[in-house]
């Protein structure tokens, strides 16, 4: 399923919109995990615009594809996308993080339409995705489960327990992404607790590894397509990304793992998107 230039233009527009939304919500909320939300934008836009079988008007549709945002702290980059897709009114996000809001920092599947699984505690998502994929297979359903991991998250032992299970059960209906933005909270992943050689690790755990430019729509889309055609085992797409992507002063700076914006920085951040 190659994508046309026209489609790429459309996706670029939606990616820019999502980045604007992330900046706005971070401003409204008084702070959010903005760096890791900005880095995964192209991954989510490629999935939601091009590949997922979903029906926002019928969020519980049994045969929909499932998405597990295992890096749940990046919820600020996920819920606005769901709003723009029509799951709920975008204006509700003005209450993000606020008293009684359905939108906390980490997405809650019981409160937010379109969120298949509640996440936020790192290292949990891939196991639940494995369970979903096993369930689909047992029920003879053709839907896919997509899981988006953070790279720092891969320090968690439970990720590798789940990886072992995914390849043991040969889950070709599970497609995993790692948003390899190369930072966790305390600094560069390789300084905090190194995960390299990363692709060798996944390989050793029985995954077919695809390393792609995580900000390229055609590269991501081709990798997803290839993953769907894979019959020998589960695929992980390691998406090489830039933390804070799109806002020049946030890029590749761990300071913006989590941050708040005042009105001046808000203007500056938005201006940066238009450069």
């Amino acid at each position, binding site marked *: 399923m190659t994508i046309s230039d026209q489609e790429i233009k459309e996706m670029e527009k939606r990616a820019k919109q999502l980045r604007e939304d992330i900046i706005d919500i971070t401003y409204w909320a008084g702070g959010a995990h903005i760096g890791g939300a900005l880095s995964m934008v192209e991954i989510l836009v490629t999935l939601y615009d091009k590949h997922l079988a979903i029906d926002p008007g019928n969020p519980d549709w049994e045969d929909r594809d499932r998405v597990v945002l295992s890096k749940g702290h990046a919820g600020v980059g996920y819920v606005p996308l769901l709003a723009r897709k029509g799951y709920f009114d975008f204006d509700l996000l003005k209450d993000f993080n606020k008293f009684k809001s359905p939108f906390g920092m980490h997405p809650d599947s019981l409160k937010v339409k379109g969120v298949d699984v509640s996440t936020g*505690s790192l290292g949990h998502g891939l*196991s*639940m995705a*494995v*369970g*979903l994929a096993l369930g689909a297979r*047992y029920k003879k359903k053709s839907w896919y489960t997509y899981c988006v991991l953070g790279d720092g998250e891969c320090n968690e032992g439970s990720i590798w*327990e*789940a990886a072992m*299970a995914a390849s043991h059960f040969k889950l070709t209906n599970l497609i995993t992404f790692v948003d390899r933005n190369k930072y966790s909270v305390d600094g560069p992943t390789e300084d905090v607790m190194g995960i390299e050689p990363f692709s060798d690790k996944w390989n050793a755990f029985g995954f077919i590894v695809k390393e792609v430019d995580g900000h390229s729509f055609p590269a991501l889309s081709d990798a997803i397509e290839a993953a769907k055609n894979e019959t020998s085992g589960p695929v992980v797409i390691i998406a090489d990304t830039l933390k804070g992507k799109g806002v020049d002063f946030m890029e590749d700076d761990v300071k913006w793992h989590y941050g708040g914006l005042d009105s001046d920085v808000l203007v500056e951040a938005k201006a940066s998107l238009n450069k």
Partner: protein
Amino acid sequence: MAEGLTWNVYDANTMTQADIYGEVLCALGEKNPDIVGLSADLAKSTKIGKFAERFPERFFNAGVAEQNMFGMAAGLAKAGLIPFVSTMAVFTTMRAAEQVRTDICYQQLNVKIIATHSGISFGQAGTTHHCTEDLGIMRSLANMTIIAPSDGIETANAVRESVDYPGPVYIRIGRGFEPNCNDSDDYGFQIGRAVEMHPGTDITLICCGITVLQAVEAAKHLKENDGLSVRVVNMHTIKPLDREAVLSAIQDTRRIITFEEHNVLGGLGTAVAEVVAASGKACAFEQVGIPDCYCLVGYPEDLYHHYQLNMDGMVQKVREVMGRDFEDDEDWEDEV
């Protein structure tokens, strides 16, 4: 015996709680294709292996990886299935505590956990395999239902009832060949509703798990030898607790002792104490269990004796509490 089960009371007397669980789960699986099973390399010892043999296409062995297993169970439940998950209680409630809380309870998922080797039922294995904290840990998880069946027959009832009971359910069972205290499974078992096993007006013993049978024996002994009228309440469901049964015990007997195969902190005794305290009524009260320490090593029967969780210990405890100066208060009926 309930529909779909081939075993009878004779079988129940020769089978462990876990054996019976395995049989019942197979029978349930025949009727309900949505039931799936998981274990973490303990399919054989937890007896969910019976289900695995019968339904290999819907049994998933996670290997020695409990955190992943409970996460997988959450995913399977999200796919519309009813996972039954079995491993030892200690690994369920501590190694995988966060998955049980965050993946399963927080999302109110229909996962049924049958945790074996609970309490000190694997006493000889030592502290690493004892589990005297699970009731306390599970009680503090919102949405969780907790059952400690008194015997194999009640285990069968609890497992059957859990299928249609919404949300996560934690059923803790033992390991050995504990004798039955119920004659049949037809006694109106209901999650959250205690069962009076022996009538009494002088003192109430509130029990769960293996202590129920011991308490019934103790009540008979005390009637015969001391002329005491000892009520025995089988509080098989720790959460939601049958508050009415506790309030009746306070009202009718004014003396309560709880017995449980658990640390005295956090479990059945604590749950009952909360009701006693809130009742505003004076009530002699004692909790018997593992006294906030790591249990000694030994075979369960020796440990039950040591910690006064067997008939002899209970008889002694009742005599102690009955011998205390606990005067009737004339105005008691007027208290809040």
